[in-house]
């Protein structure tokens, strides 16, 4: 077995040789023009860095950077970027290319590495380590060695993202530096742990030659790694974990494999067909010189070479028929009739920014190209279409779906293959109008257009409506080509579709975790009620009874540090209880309200178990900053602020951050008729309900001469508040403040500020009180907020004030104009009920979650024992329906869950119910007999 150093020498020699031959072919994408080198680098880097924090004070290093095509993109996000490669020729070429492209190299460094570790990089100096299309080519022991070294160089909160392959295949000989290696997910996880790292995510990634990879059952993924709790083990242990079936064996003789020869010959073939005879010749010489082989059958290559002339003839034919020819007109006839909306879009033509579509010939007919990507198979679209359809339908999820939605039309070869082997409806979404138009020009697509159940051309402006016609139980399959050319749009299509079907087809088990105490506690209840009303399987986790523990700690501890430590320990204890709760009754989504007492450890543990963690951060992110520590523990963060808030929380590590204001619960916040006694107690011309924050004290002290009542806590026991504050400043229950809202002529609503006097001119978010008052049909005067006008139209649906003096004037005005007050309040209530209920908010939250996590939730549901139970119960419709209902109720997959509604119900029992009860009593009897210790005898 070679030493690591010897392997590094092999790698260096091999890659130097390849770079010398043709760096574009071996390192970059040979098909693309050289000018696209950096753009494609940027595209690939965007995949690597998606969702991660970055900034000018952060550092990044790439393992196996080749000529450094991703480095300029990295330098745009990081303050300092280092590219490492074992090949001196590659590094030299990188310098040359950067100079030629006049790329500012101030923040970019390129260096030759030892090839087996990050030795040149100082310990704990890097925020982000990445590698793309490099590690899979390295011998497994070298990969293991890198894994071990990553732990050393990462800063405390740093992370690594490495592109690897997941799959089952016979890995090549250890000295093979070209064929890719694949590992199982389990091996990867184990190896990463042994390397002292923690695997925090696995995401699919688009790669060149995606189709070829799929045919080899290789799944390209990016793994996200963070420093683990333990130290790094030996690289031998890590390598052993990666290869549980034994180490890679080495091959005798040259490291230049048949595979390399085969690739080079194909390349020569393409160059020849493309008319680049010089490079074709040099490539054949490369094969002759370095890749002498007796085993490779080159007949296939030769056959293709002989087809060149025939293909050229076909290109001529295609060119002749392109445009508004006979084929196009025939296709359009069907298109107009079947999908008139699509026809309208095709008529308009391509949209700005759409890449041009080129038609080329293949042995089976015309194929479409977008830049360097062929939208069909470049050579054998028919057989490739068959292979794709076969593979696609092998997936039970897809095969069993009521409708299959294919994203990507191409020239339709793959759709024809699908129609041959599938009877259920097939729909198609094309993301590029030009592409569809070109396809209509060059192929007879009438049969496809007749058979398609649905066709849409989607672009970012019309996604929602174009997908409305799809059935919710459809399955979406995205063609890799579409992912490559319109990745973002395809993701958007998938999201919109998932969002639409998620609400109808998913039934996740949701828990809502409230805070220990404070104003967010009622929002937890409103959230739970709203989810109930939306038909969700939800339960509230009310931990408010634990608040007394926190109070006790505060009383016992006077030192801030000690008190904080104790409170953190207390939260850890509550978190452990919560984890047990969720083990006993599992959940799929945990919605944590702001200040929910759950630790990062517990959240990480839940995420490890596949639970989607959500934070509804209904606080001012500038005042409460604990999100900095916790953002990365949540899959979704919903905020009541926009702009900087969302960016800041994203930078802190949250992947999905969305704006979602609070709202009202019409069952609680509603107009109420009060008795005269109640009006006397709760009513007043002017009222305020809320805690005595600084700006409120400072403002309301000036209103002592008004008929004004203040309700709430934390008001000073001094003049003038001693007269204004009601009932000793006690805490009010929601039903009490509803009475105040309904019996006050003017309800003041001044957003709190601990720093500023009066109205905060930079205040943005809208507090829950605004929506609650509006829903009560109560008149309110609220301070102006940046986000208020989106919710209510000032002056028409809500009355606002901009300063204390403005407030004084408006109080006087509105006290004199009761009809105007009523009109504004009425319109405000209508708007609140129409747009600002918690039901609306939670619906939005769920659809946002479903948009990105539909597959994950769907998979969890399918993996749930209920899924198999439902399937197995199909022999008896009533039993199946009972299983489905129990699942929808959120019952556990046990007999008690299945019969819960029978034992609670009344009326005549059906046969099925009797049989289930029979089983229930059998089990009960057996348990009783076991308890008695009854034996066989007697």
């Amino acid at each position: 077995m070679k030493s690591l150093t010897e392997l590094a020498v092999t790698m260096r020699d091999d890659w130097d040789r390849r770079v010398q031959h043709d760096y574009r072919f071996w390192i970059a994408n040979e098909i693309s023009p050289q000018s696209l080198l950096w753009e494609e680098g940027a595209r690939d880097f965007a995949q690597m860095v998606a969702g991660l924090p970055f900034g000018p004070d952060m550092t990044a290093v790439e393992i196996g950077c080749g000529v450094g095509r991703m480095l300029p993109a990295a330098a745009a996000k990081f303050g300092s970027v280092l590219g490492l490669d074992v090949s001196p020729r590659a590094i030299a070429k990188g310098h040359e290319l950067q100079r030629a492209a006049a790329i500012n190299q101030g923040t970019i460094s390129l260096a030759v590495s030892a090839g087996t570790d990050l030795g040149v990089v100082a310990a704990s100096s890097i925020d982000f380590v990445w590698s793309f299309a490099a590690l899979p080519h390295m011998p497994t022991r070298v990969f293991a060695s890198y894994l071990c070294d990553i732990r050393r160089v990462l800063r405390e909160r740093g992370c690594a993202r490495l592109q690897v392959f997941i799959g089952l295949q016979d890995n090549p000989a250890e000295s093979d530096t070209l064929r890719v290696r694949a590992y199982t997910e389990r091996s990867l996880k184990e190896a990463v742990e042994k390397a002292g790292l923690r695997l925090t995510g696995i995401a699919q990634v688009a790669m060149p030659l995606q189709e070829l990879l799929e045919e080899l059952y290789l799944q390209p993924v990016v793994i996200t790694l963070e420093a683990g709790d333990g130290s790094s083990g030996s690289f031998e242990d890590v390598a052993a974990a990666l290869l549980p079936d034994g180490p890679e064996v080495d091959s005798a003789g040259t490291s230049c494999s048949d595979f390399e020869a085969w690739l080079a010959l194909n390349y020569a073939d393409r160059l020849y067909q493309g008319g680049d005879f010089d490079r074709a010749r040099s490539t054949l010489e490369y094969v002759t010189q370095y890749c002498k082989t007796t085993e490779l059958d080159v007949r296939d290559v030769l056959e293709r070479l002989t087809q060149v002339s025939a293909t050229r003839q076909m290109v001529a034919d295609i060119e002749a028929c392109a445009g508004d020819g006979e084929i196009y007109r025939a296709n359009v006839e069907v298109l107009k009739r079947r999908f008139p909306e699509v026809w309208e879009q095709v008529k308009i033509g391509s949209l700005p920014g759409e890449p041009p579509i080129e038609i080329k010939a293949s042995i089976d007919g015309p194929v479409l190209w977008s830049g360097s990507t062929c939208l069909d198979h470049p050579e054998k679209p028919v057989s490739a279409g068959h292979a794709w359809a076969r593979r696609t339908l092998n997936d039970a999820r897809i095969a069993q779906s009521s409708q299959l939605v294919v994203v990507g039309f191409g020239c339709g070869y793959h759709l024809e293959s699908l129609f041959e082997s599938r009877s259920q409806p097939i729909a198609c979404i094309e993301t590029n109008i030009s592409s569809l138009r070109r396809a209509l020009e060059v192929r007879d697509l009438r049969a496809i257009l007749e058979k398609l159940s649905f066709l849409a051309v989607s672009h970012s402006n019309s996604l929602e409506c174009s997908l409305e016609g799809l059935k919710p139980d459809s399955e979406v399959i995205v063609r890799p080509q579409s992912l490559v050319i319109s990745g973002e749009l395809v993701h958007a299509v998938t999201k919109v579709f998932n969002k639409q079907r998620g609400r109808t087809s998913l039934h996740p088990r949701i828990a809502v975790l409230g805070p220990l105490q404070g104003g967010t506690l009622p929002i937890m209840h409103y959230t739970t009620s709203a989810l109930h009303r939306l038909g969700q399987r939800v339960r509230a986790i009310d931990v408010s009874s634990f608040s007394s523990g926190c109070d006790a700690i505060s009383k016992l501890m006077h030192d801030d540090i000690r008190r904080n430590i104790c409170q953190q320990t207390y939260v850890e204890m509550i978190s452990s209880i919560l984890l047990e709760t969720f083990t006993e009754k599992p959940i799929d989504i945990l919605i944590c309200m702001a200040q929910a007492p759950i630790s990062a450890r517990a959240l990480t543990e839940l995420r490890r178990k596949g639970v989607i963690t959500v934070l509804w951060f209904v606080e001012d992110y500038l005042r409460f900053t604990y999100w900095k520590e916790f953002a990365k523990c949540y899959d979704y963060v919903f905020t009541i602020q926009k702009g900087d808030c969302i960016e800041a929380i994203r930078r802190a590590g949250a992947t999905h951050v969305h704006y979602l204001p609070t709202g009202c619960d019409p069952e609680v916040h509603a107009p109420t008729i009060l008795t005269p006694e109640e009006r006397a107690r709760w009513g007043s011309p002017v009222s305020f309900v809320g805690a005595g924050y600084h700006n409120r004290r400072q403002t309301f002290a000036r209103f002592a001469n008004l008929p004004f009542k203040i309700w709430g806590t934390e008001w000073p026991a001094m003049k003038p508040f001693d007269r204004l504050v009601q009932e000793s400043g006690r805490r009010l229950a929601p039903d009490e403040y509803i009475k105040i809202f309904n019996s006050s002529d003017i309800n003041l609503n001044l957003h709190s500020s601990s720093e500023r006097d009066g109205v905060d001119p930079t205040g943005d978010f809208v507090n829950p009180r605004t929506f609650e008052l509006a829903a009560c049909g109560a008149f309110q005067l609220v301070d102006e907020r940046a986000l208020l006008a989106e919710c209510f139209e000032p002056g028409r649906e809500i009355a606002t004030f901009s300063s204390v003096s403005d407030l004084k004037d408006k109080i006087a005005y509105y006290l004199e104009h009761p009809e105007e007050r009523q009109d504004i309040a009425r319109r405000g209530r209508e708007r609140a009920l129409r747009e600002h209920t918690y039901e609306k908010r939670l619906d939005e939250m769920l659809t946002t979650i479903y948009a990105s996590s539909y597959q994950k939730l769907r998979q969890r549901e399918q993996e749930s024992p209920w899924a198999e139970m439902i399937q197995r119960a199909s022999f008896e419709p009533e039993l199946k329906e009972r299983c489905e209902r129990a699942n929808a109720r959120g019952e556990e997959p046990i007999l008690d869950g299945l019969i819960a509604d029978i034992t609670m119900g009344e009326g005549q029992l059906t046969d099925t119910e009797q049989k289930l009860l029979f089983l229930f009593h059998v089990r009960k009897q057996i348990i009783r007999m076991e308890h008695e210790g009854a034996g066989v005898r007697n």
Partner: protein
Amino acid sequence: MKKRHPNKNKVLLVNITRLGDMLQATPTIAGIKQENPDCHTTVLVEKQFSDICHILPHIDEVVSLDLSFTCRSLAAEQVGIIEAYQYISEFVDKLRADNFDYCLNMSSSAYTALLLRLLKVPRTGGWTADEEGYRLIESEWARLFATSVHYQNRQYNSLNLVDMFRCSADVEQHPEKLLVNIESSAKRHAEDLIRSAGFTNTGPIIAVQAGASQAKRQWSPTLFVEMVKILDREYNARVILTGSPKEISIVQPILNGCQSNNVFSAVGKTSIPQLAALLKECQVLVTGDTGPMHISVAAGTPVVAMFLASAYGFETGPYSAGNIVLQPVIGCGPCNPNKSCSRPDCHETISPRLMADLAMARTAGEVTELSREQADPRHVMVYRTTFDRHGFCDMQPINAPEGDEFSRYRNAYRKLWLSDLGGFEVERTPQRHSKSSKLNIVDPGIEGLQEIANCAYTGQQLMRRLRELILDVRAPGAALQRINGDIASLDRSIEELGFNYGPIGSLAKMFLFAKENLSGSDPLSLASQMDSIYGDLGRRCERFSDFYQES
């Protein structure tokens, strides 16, 4: 004898979980065949007991339910539930296809009641369920069965469950013993076993069954050792220890403690048919209240049986004449079968000497008398099993002719149920006082009896009033509501009286079971049924009082 369904054609007997139960059903099955010679009898048992059914006479077909599979599937939960459901579904379909015209379920479990409901058999005895899944007990004998096994009423009962089971199936003619066929191959196996034992003693062969279904019903191995030593050394007896393979750990200490050529362990060496054959070769079996006890009785070998802890001889005692039953006299016995016992003092009330002497005495013939010195009736009652003139099993005390404190109640209840439910003529003595008032009909010596009788009378009055209100279209709704409230309150009083006063517990329980079996939804019919139920209660109170005074 009063009969509900005298004629039977295709009969299903549900007797699922216990070996003893199957054997105890043999007089009933034989009786059904005797009274309906052309009828076809099918027995439904748990799979592990299906083999034994083949050696029970008069059974035409055996259907087995694989409860082990069902329970394993249910324990696996998730898909296991569906598998269990599918199995039960197919099982029910198969049974339905047999079109039984009569089904007797004497298992009080809720699942067998539901099974009967699922089978939709038109005529049933014993436990079944209504259309909402609630338990129904249609036969009054079966209700008496349920009443008698209720923990509070057990000691007031002297009717063997075998007879209650039999009467639930309307069987009058029957053998006064349990039945089993001894196969010739099993007999040969038993003879071989005895030959292989290598006994040197020449006295009687005495079988000893040490294991029992619950630890607290199992006499201590030390006491068994002592008893066996007496039998071996003083009586020249040959002792065979019986038991299933699971009972080796119970028997081994006895075997070790005796260290004798004349003590042979047949534990784990016999199947059920072979055990029956082996017991037939013995002169007597010493046992607790066990399955082998019933096998022995069926094989014709008398038993000397200890009814320890929760076992109660009158209830499940050996069903043939001439057996000896020992029942400890202790404040806590017979105890609750569902509770364990950390100090089973009842075991100490029976001495090894007494057991050995009784076993030997029984080998010589019927034992009809014991002196107080041999068995002190303050600590243990010793009975001899007999049959009364109506063919009901009974137990006569042989160590205290005057009986125990419960015997007067037991006798009164025995006469009550035989006459009231069975229509049998029972021995009467002239009444000592005349009843001029309905409100003073019963013996004031039985606590609570007068109150419960008054309740029955009030109930009948309420029913008359209820019927009037139902028929009166102008009756105010409030009046109906009020009377409903009064009935609910009255019924609660009856239930509470039953709880408060042990001797009348059976009367109250029978009332409650009858009420649970009200059928239909027509108010007048329901009122009429209730009137009859109150009437039954009143009549039974009166008769019970009379029989009590007579005894």
